[in-house]
């Protein structure tokens, strides 16, 4: 069972997967709290065009992914103001990018295989260089989110109040989307563009239903994310089925019962939880003001 770990590509997959699982779980928590899960999905789809374009130009897909997702995240934060509108604006950009991706791939030979690996991930194709790159980028992402995490959370719960306290709400929102774009770029290596949701949203969506305190939720999300990834690689490495299938199945398989069991206390409870959060958080913020 564990014999697969003697192969270097499995080791690479394991290390890159672990880094990605941690970063995605942390960023995913904020994504959910901000109600931006659709943007998360859209950004990953947009990455498809970038990856396809990179393939066409003969460079590593990760660069194309980063260029496209970051550009798109800026466009999204400029375009949409209200949630409903934002979803649609995001969706339009997403669809157009996918169309571009198709165009790029159709210009490239080996159309189907390339599309497949971009869309569904080829974790066993991760090289040592990729691991280093993922590690560095992941570290930067974690540091930045550690710095902006608290005001970001505050502005997610009560944007107006945060603004009066001097939190640059809009700028934070845009920076956050860029962080998400970068997270998606590295996550794609593991699960592919279409399945990013499983690692980005899955762990936090489950954690948020189990504990209400932000730090605990993030911590639990990291544990879940790591567990899905490790188990997924282990199962995928020992069977003919793809790793990304196992990761999505685990992510969903844990989420579903948790979601169903917490159904009765559904919206009221979570709304209350958020209220509590926002109070603690504004308390924190005011304390910080005093300290400053």
């Amino acid at each position: 069972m564990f014999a697969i770990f003697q192969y270097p590509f499995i080791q690479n997959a394991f290390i890159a997967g672990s880094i990605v699982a941690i970063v995605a779980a942390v960023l995913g928590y904020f994504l959910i709290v901000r109600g931006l899960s659709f943007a998360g999905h859209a950004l990953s789809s947009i990455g498809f065009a970038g990856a396809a374009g990179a393939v066409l130009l003969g460079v590593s897909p990760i660069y194309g992914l980063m260029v496209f997702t970051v550009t798109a995240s800026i466009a999204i934060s400029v375009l949409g103001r209200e949630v409903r509108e934002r979803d649609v604006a995001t969706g339009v950009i997403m669809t157009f990018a996918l169309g571009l991706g198709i165009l790029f791939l159709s210009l490239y030979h080996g159309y189907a295989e390339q599309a497949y690996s971009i869309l569904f991930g080829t974790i066993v194709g991760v090289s040592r260089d990729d691991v280093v790159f993922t590690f560095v980028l992941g570290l930067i992402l974690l540091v930045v989110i550690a710095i902006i995490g608290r005001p970001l959370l505050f502005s997610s719960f009560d944007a107006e109040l945060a603004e009066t306290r001097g939190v640059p709400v809009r700028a934070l929102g845009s920076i956050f989307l860029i962080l998400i774009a970068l997270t998606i770029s590295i996550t794609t290596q593991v699960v592919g563009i279409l399945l990013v949701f499983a690692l980005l949203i899955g762990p936090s969506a489950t954690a948020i239903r189990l504990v209400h305190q932000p730090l605990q939720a993030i911590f639990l999300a990291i544990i879940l994310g790591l567990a899905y990834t490790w188990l997924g690689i282990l199962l995928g490495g020992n069977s003919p089925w793809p790793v990304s299938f196992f990761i999505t199945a685990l992510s969903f398989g844990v989420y579903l019962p948790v979601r169903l069991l917490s159904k009765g206390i559904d919206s009221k409870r979570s709304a209350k939880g958020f209220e509590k959060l926002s109070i603690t958080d504004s308390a924190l913020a005011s304390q910080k003001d005093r300290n400053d």
Partner: protein
Amino acid sequence: MNSEIQEPIIQLERVDVQLGGRVILHNIGLSIQPGEFVVILGPNGAGKTTFLRLLLGLIQPASGSVRVLGQTPRVGSHLIGYAPQHRVFDSELPLRGRDLVGFGLDGHRWGIGLPSRSRREKIDQALKEVDGLDLADAPFGQLSGGEQQRLLIAQALLTDPRLLILDEPLANLDLAFQQDVVALIDKVCRTRGATILLVAHDINPLLQVTDRVLYMARGHSAIGSPDEVITESNLTKLYGSPVQVVHTLGRYFVVGAEV
């Protein structure tokens, strides 16, 4: 006021309501006469909205009897007009004022509903009654809160209801708009002889038009004229903690626990 021999439009006897295993309303008994203007007061979570939903037939009592317009409440009655609380409309909502008001007339019917003269006239009539004809073709989402509220009242009026249930129609309106809306509702009450049940947080803007107050707290209730109900002994009993009432300059101020 109305003669006492008329059959009450709303009658509750020993009603208990449970939601999610919790008792929300306990042992409520009251009767309301046709044409009365009743204001429902009480802190958040007191069960005001639950009470209204009970009257609309959206929830069933755990025990006791509820009669509205002489029968057990059932959804779909065109004799009741309803405007729920906290409705926030997307400012990009792609419909006109007229379309929203029209829902009150035939929004629940199947089929596409061809435009007709009589339909248009009925809608215009209701719009006129709330002084909102000029808002008919404006994008609904971009109207101000007070303007939206008038149109929603017009919507509730379209079926010629005998009972108008308005959940916090004055919330988020400034004083001028509040007076506008109160005057409008009062006009409807007087000219149509409709019964009004209106949830509010402050009785003062409504004092001129209120017949009786239904005060709810902790699942209990008291009903009567403002003078009778808004007293220290009454509210202290309802809240279960000391409450002070200041009645001065023709206005009520309730001070205490969690008012």
